[in-house]
């Protein structure tokens, strides 16, 4: 019989740890840590499949715990479980924590059970050590910039010589382009002439998990961003106006990530998105994506 998977819970409230240990103790080997420091110590001595951390703790935030966990045990899946939906922690959990899910307190036990079960299964399937991706791999694939203004496109084009960089001003254009030249990386704003394209991104990621997305936005709605994590697994969120260095660093990292996904398709499921209720999504943008996906149907997956 397979050994029980290990799940590490981090929270400064002992009662949270107690109830989680009770809820998951029968299924997994549960480790609990009362602080970030304790969590790091446990990560040093134990191989874990899933880390679930609170955000607001004295001395070390959950994002910081997850960031260190990512470096120490890249194969472990990371989940933030927090009562505070603040912009900084959400953006931090995307960019630094590269988290699998952002779960809000109070959680529903059944949903959390499913989420953790998912995470455990994915962690198990992508457990082999990740070998370095050959440098030439990074060179493959283009970048599609979906934005109303040209500044992002010009900046990226200038800093990525030799790499195909395309631009589209509307989702329609972008989809048409993607049908013929599937890009490695999509850099997009959330607000486009078609309106908010979050729903479209969620559908795209659900059907094309290999698409790596960087969202550049001035948008500050926290619940929206949480959905972008859980349902679209965006790779980075950068505030607008965007810092040049931050953008270029993110692009570099996203291209490497894409190359890794190409080399190891088993990693794709690490970005499995929450089931999106198609009926709930009825924006115009989502409709366009659906027809685009219909056109793609029958073709080999462009991985």
């Amino acid at each position, binding site marked *: 019989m397979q050994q029980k998977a290990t799940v590490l819970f981090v929270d400064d409230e002992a009662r949270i740890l*107690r109830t989680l240990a*009770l*809820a998951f103790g029968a299924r997994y080997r549960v480790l609990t840590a009362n602080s970030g420091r304790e969590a790091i110590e446990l990560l040093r001595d134990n191989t874990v499949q899933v880390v679930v951390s609170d955000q607001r703790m*004295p001395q070390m935030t959950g994002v910081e715990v997850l960031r260190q966990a990512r470096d120490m045990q890249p194969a472990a899946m990371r989940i933030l479980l927090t009562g505070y939906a603040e912009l900084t922690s959400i953006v931090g959990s995307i960019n630094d924590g590269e988290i699998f899910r952002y779960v809000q*307190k109070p*959680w529903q036990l059944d949903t959390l059970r499913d989420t953790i079960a998912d995470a455990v299964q994915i962690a198990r399937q992508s457990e082999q050590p990740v070998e370095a991706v050959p440098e030439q791999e990074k060179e493959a694939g283009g970048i599609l910039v979906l934005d109303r203004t040209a500044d992002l496109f010009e900046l990226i084009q200038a800093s990525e010589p030799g790499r195909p960089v395309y631009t589209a001003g509307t989702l329609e254009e972008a989809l048409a382009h993607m049908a013929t030249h599937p890009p490695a990386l999509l850099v997009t704003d959330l607000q486009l002439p078609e309106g908010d394209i979050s729903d479209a991104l969620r559908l795209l990621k659900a059907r094309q998990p290999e698409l790596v997305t960087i969202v550049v936005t001035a948008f500050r709605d926290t619940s929206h961003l949480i959905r972008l994590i859980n349902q679209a697994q965006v790779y980075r969120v950068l505030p607008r106006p965007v810092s040049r260095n931050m953008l270029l660093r993110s692009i570099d990292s996203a291209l490497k990530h894409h190359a890794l996904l190409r080399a190891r398709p088993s990693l794709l499921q690490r970005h499995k998105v929450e089931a999106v209720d198609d009926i709930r999504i009825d924006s115009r943008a989502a409709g366009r994506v659906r027809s685009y996906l219909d056109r793609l149907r029958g073709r080999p997956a462009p991985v």
Partner: protein
Amino acid sequence: MWIITRPPPRARNARGRPKPMTGRCMAGNRSTFRVRDLVMQVHPIPPQMRVTDVADLFLAEACANLLCLPVVRDGVPLGIVSRYDIMRIFLRQYGREVFGARPIERFMNSAPLLVNAQAEIETASSYVREHMRLPITEDFVVVEEGRYLGMGMVTSLLEKMEQRVAARGQALVRANQHLKASQAHLVQSEKMASLGQMVAGVAHEINTPLGYVRSNVELARDFSQRTATALIAGGNLVRTLLDERATDEEIGEHLAVATTELEAVAETGILDELGNLFDDTLHGLGEISELVVNLRNFSRLDRARVDRVNLNECLESALTIGRNLIKQKAEVVRHYGDLPDVECAASQINQVLLNILTNAAQAIDEFGEIAVATRVLGEQVEISIRDNGCGMPESVRARIFDPFYTTKPVGQGTGLGLSISYQIIEQHGGAIEVNSTPGEGTEFILRLPLRQPDAVEDSVALEDMPEAG
């Protein structure tokens, strides 16, 4: 004969005072008064007129109000002659007999005050004031393009100026009202912003106990279902054992089911923890009620505006409300003295305390300490809130109570928090003091008198102050 006309008299009220100006004359209206508006048509006299005739003219009813008469030839003003001039002639011995028949031009003031009809009232007024001979014996001549237009009376100039000042006064009153209204608006916005922050903070704070309470209840529900199944299986087993007709096979079957169910119950591990589970749940509910009670105490919506309160309790209230922000930045160390109750508008004092505590937390970079201390100082209570955060240089310290001064990035602070705090403490007859050393930390010291003067207790002075939710 000479025709003398006056401009139509200004409307006057019952007391004989000029009615306030209306319409276009009101403040804010940039239209200007010009000398033309107060010109009085006085028929001029020719330079050749005899002194005695001029004297007769002054005696005539129509000229009763005039100090002087203009001397004009071909529309060009040559001078003016005043009653005073005539009087001086006639006061000499045989003055009337000797000089009476001579032309008036030899006795007139040939350098009268000439004011252009287009001149603004203010300009004319300062010109007349500077050049006027004392005692005032003459008015001034109004000219247009060098030609005689009429006379201007110094008194009507004064009247116009007075109205002007009154209008300005009104404008100032209105500007002041406007300013007060916008300030009240800003104070209100600040209050709403801090209220919003506070509510968001407490709402989030409630999510933690809510998290484990909910989870525990869900666990208990699952557990009770499982236990119920096990109970039924156990009951079935007992019934089978007591049934004489039951076969060994049936007993074995029921035994197996009951054992499995009991194992399933044991496997959850909840049985041993059931006590803890319920204790935690009750604790969580206690936490939630405490937060709600604190929220209510903090706002004091259900209490009198001015109340007798224990400031230690106010500090605890503010610390609870601000806990979500404070707990990840600092350890709070309390040194509470034994305090008598203090008369104050508690909701306002709470707002001040929360404001200073959140500032203290924000001043700490990583993790530090906030020390709160209280003590009695004669007829006052002193509260000290000290952090070991980044501190501030004197240039910042000197300005922190200034309205709109903020060191936070745009959009993160209104710069009103401490200025409102300062006002609140001042209105209570207290004092607020700040000591800071860059790199070492900041200490705020508040002093509040135990009693408010009666006038304040009537909450007249405190009435206008912003109130924390």
